């Protein structure tokens, strides 16, 4: 299947083109920290540091014959520990995945998600016309921009899983409830919204990412709003860091940041006690990749009755749920290689912390952690909730 001859030189140029600091690859110390911290590094034939060694030895074609780079879930742990500040996640790993895609060396389950994203604008292959169906019963009615034809203060970029996933829709409804309780003037795009594309980009499908960005950019330009908020840290990351590089620039916040700024208004609304020990899982693309550590904790701390406890891995050192960088669409492939799920490790840690509730702030996490809870001995005691759901519960 491998037909493309990839020499170090051509690959290096591609990486340069794809990333602003790609030239950093040249100054790798081969310290191996990246491969050591990589949660699935032990299963990779070529973890990050070895990939760089192969590039330097001009033996990159060997890499294209292997498939274990698909164990990478773009969790950003390698990038965060690299002393040379090499953009390992969005530079090296993403570019290697791009080469694997070109060579046709792709697990079929990932292909389906990519093909769906291209055709339907969401990886699940759901009807684009039904993207706002979750909002049908919300009162006051959620403003859909195309129908309302008026400016709003906040454009809420809902995202793929919050729009369609039956479990995550509960988070979405909770966000709507909190925004309505605060009297925020917000609107959603509904059928006009396409996938943010970040996970597709990190799975190596840059061309697809550009198409999705183009569609969303065109949609944004049709409406008037002051800022964008997102449910999904991946959408937040893309709109904040990647869209501007393609000429689409808007102020954007994750909903936890937005709500924390309005804590004075929110606090009096949090009337009902949520009596629980809560531990918070930092999502990779909110925490490690974008440094948003405090707002989620501030929100949880504002809920009466909540006692916040930390897991052993927290803040920049947080573990990954395993859903990023294409991981959401590689469960079968990764299970075959690993026979363990990253979410299992995290849930075990949450149980050890003594918490009753594992709080999250990313739509990939609720279903992944709930699945892990179901399969874990004694895990049934642990409840997984998005912060928005806990806030909505406290508002009552």
């Amino acid at each position, binding site marked *: 299947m491998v037909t493309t001859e990839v020499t170090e030189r051509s690959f290096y140029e591609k990486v340069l083109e794809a990333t602003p600091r790609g030239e950093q690859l040249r100054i790798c110390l081969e310290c191996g920290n990246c491969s050591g911290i990589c949660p699935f590094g032990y299963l990779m034939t070529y973890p990050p540091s070895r990939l760089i060694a192969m590039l330097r030895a001009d033996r990159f074609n060997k890499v294209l014959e292997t498939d274990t780079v698909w164990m990478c879930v773009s969790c950003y742990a390698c990038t965060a520990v690299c002393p040379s500040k090499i953009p390992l996640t969005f530079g090296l790993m993403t570019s290697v995945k791009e080469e694997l895609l070109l060579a*046709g060396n792709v697990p079929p389950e990932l292909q389906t998600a990519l093909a769906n994203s291209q055709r339907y604008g969401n990886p699940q292959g759901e009807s684009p016309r039904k993207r706002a169906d979750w909002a049908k019963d919300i009162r006051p009615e959620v403003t859909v921009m195309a129908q309302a034809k008026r400016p709003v203060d906040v454009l809420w970029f809902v995202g793929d899983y919050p729009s369609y996933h039956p479990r995550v829709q509960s988070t979405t409804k909770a966000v709507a409830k909190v925004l309505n309780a605060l009297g925020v003037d917000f609107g959603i795009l509904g059928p006009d919204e396409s996938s943010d594309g970040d996970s597709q980009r990190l799975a190596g499908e840059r061309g697809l990412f550009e*198409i999705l960005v183009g569609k969303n950019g065109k949609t944004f330009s049709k409406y008037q709003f002051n800022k964008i908020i997102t449910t999904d840290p991946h959408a937040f990351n893309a709109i904040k860091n990647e869209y501007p590089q393609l000429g689409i620039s808007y102020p954007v916040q994750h909903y936890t940041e937005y709500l924390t700024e309005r804590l004075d208004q929110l606090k009096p609304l949090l009337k009902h006690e949520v009596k629980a020990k809560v531990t918070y899982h930092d999502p990779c693309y909110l925490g490690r990749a974008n440094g948003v550590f405090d707002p989620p904790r501030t929100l949880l701390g504002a809920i009466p009755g909540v006692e916040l406890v930390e897991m052993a891995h927290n803040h920049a050192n947080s573990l990954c749920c395993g859903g990023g960088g294409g991981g959401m669409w590689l469960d079968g492939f990764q299970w075959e290689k690993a026979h363990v799920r990253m979410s299992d490790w995290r849930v075990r840690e949450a149980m050890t912390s003594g918490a009753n509730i594992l709080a999250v702030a990313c739509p990939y996490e609720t279903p992944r952690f709930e699945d892990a809870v179901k399969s874990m001995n004694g895990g049934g005691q642990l409840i997984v909730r998005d912060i928005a759901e806990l806030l909505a519960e406290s508002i009552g």
Partner: protein
Amino acid sequence: MNVVALFKLVPDLVEELEIDQSGTALNTDFLRLIINELDDHAIEQAILLKERSGARMTVIGSDAEGADDVLYTAVAKGADQLIKLMGDPNAVINNHAMARATAIVLKELQPDLILTGVQAHNDLDGSIGPLVAEYLGMPYVGYVSGVNVQNGRIVVRKEYPGGLIAEMEVDLPAVVGIQSAEQPPRYVTVNKVRQAMKTAAIEERPLPALDVSGGAAIRRMFKPESATRAKMIEGSTEEVTARLLDIFKEIGAL
């Protein structure tokens, strides 16, 4: 060896189907078309044959929204020639007519092997493969999930119920109805397809005049209707049987 893969575009069932005011056709306002899944497998099988035995591969489909995307994607996967039949897209729900018209184009191309999906969800008058084979006077094998070229013939794998698999040799030229390719249809990146769009050319040929005889005429199109027509007969076995016999006589079944 010349291999041709035929495809058609069918209504995408991800969107809910609506019936238009005439009551005999689908409402096309929100209708999206997608390649018939099994035709996608036929294209994949043709590409596998090309990769294994260096066949020349042509892809043929009718003009409809999305046909160009299918054709450019096929060339990005490895197809050599792309043909789009220009004509009345409403005719595609008549496989007799499409098969006759396609056969005329195929005769000119003189293929050794024609692959197509074994069926499509909107086939009203039988699948197109056997019809094409009939009009070209070629042998046909359907429900095939693997094709190999051996000594100027093909060996196909055909699946039967109960886990039985047959391998049979077929003389060429032949038509094969593909149930599944030997591997799932491959994904080609957006950039690769874009590249293909810049370099590949789609040959537009007029769809030969359509002869619709033998096809189905749609009298009424409707969604499954719920109704309460069942009657429960109470009583002993003898009573129920006697009543049943009476009913059969009443409706003239006995």
